[in-house]
């Protein structure tokens, strides 16, 4: 075998259980999926919301570090979080967090071997979307009541 030029080749080289070499097919990428299908749309949304949340946790870090830093630092966080941009960011974070959490439960069920048939997959997908909307609104109702 020659030297690899692209490390994707490493995932293509496999062995059958008898030890013989085989070139495995790569899993298909975005171009083969119909993104209007709920299954593929929710799948990539899980990754996107996960990445979005990774950036969102920086807000949590800022909030905690500022609280430890003192009243002035904390006032700056509060100014940002109650600004137009801050509220938009927090609202997006809330929706992304609830989606990733609920769809994560869906993934755990799949990992345990449940819910693989097509009707159940669509039903659980719809439940995730409805649950995300309900919990996002509920979280903000609590926030608005607490704020008022």
């Amino acid at each position, binding site marked *: 075998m020659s030297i690899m030029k692209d490390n994707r080749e490493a995932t293509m080289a496999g062995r059958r259980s008898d030890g*013989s070499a085989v070139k495995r097919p790569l899993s298909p990428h975005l171009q083969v999926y119909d993104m209007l299908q709920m299954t593929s749309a929710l799948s990539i949304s899980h990754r996107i919301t996960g*990445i979005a949340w990774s950036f969102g946790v920086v807000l949590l870090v800022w909030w*905690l570090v500022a609280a430890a830093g003192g009243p002035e630092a904390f006032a700056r966080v509060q100014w940002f979080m109650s600004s137009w941009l801050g509220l938009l960011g927090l609202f997006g974070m809330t929706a992304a967090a609830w989606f990733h959490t609920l769809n*994560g439960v869906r993934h755990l069920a799949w990992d345990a071997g449940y819910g693989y048939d097509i009707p159940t997959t669509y039903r659980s997908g719809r439940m995730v979307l409805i649950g995300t909307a309900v919990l996002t609104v509920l979280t903000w109702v609590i*926030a608005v009541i607490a704020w008022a």
Partner: protein
Amino acid sequence: MATNEHTAETVLRSPLGRVRGLGSAKGGTHHWWLQRVTSIALLPLTIWFALAAASLAGASYIDTVAWIGRPWNAVLLLATIGLTFHHTASGLQVVMEDYANVEWVKVGGILAIKAICMMLALASALAVLKIAV
């Protein structure tokens, strides 16, 4: 040593090694499993934190610090911080592994992700401890 009829290649791998299936990575399912374990642990913690954070909206500096400093809140916050950044680092690592095809970009990216997540986790944990202790 097994030869096979499919290719002329010699298999430099013991039957036990093939059964274990760990390959050169040595890790097996460890990374995948820890992602699941942290996600299960984060489920109650995230629900708790989202609702608690919402009820702290508009709270004053004194009220917020008092809330963070309560023993149970501080313990749950520390657990949430550790697990969140562990889960974040392992999730972003998979994203790098999937999309970065140049080896040094992939390895450098994963190391950077781990370093940033570790620093953010330590900073958050120190903040909670400073308030609570």
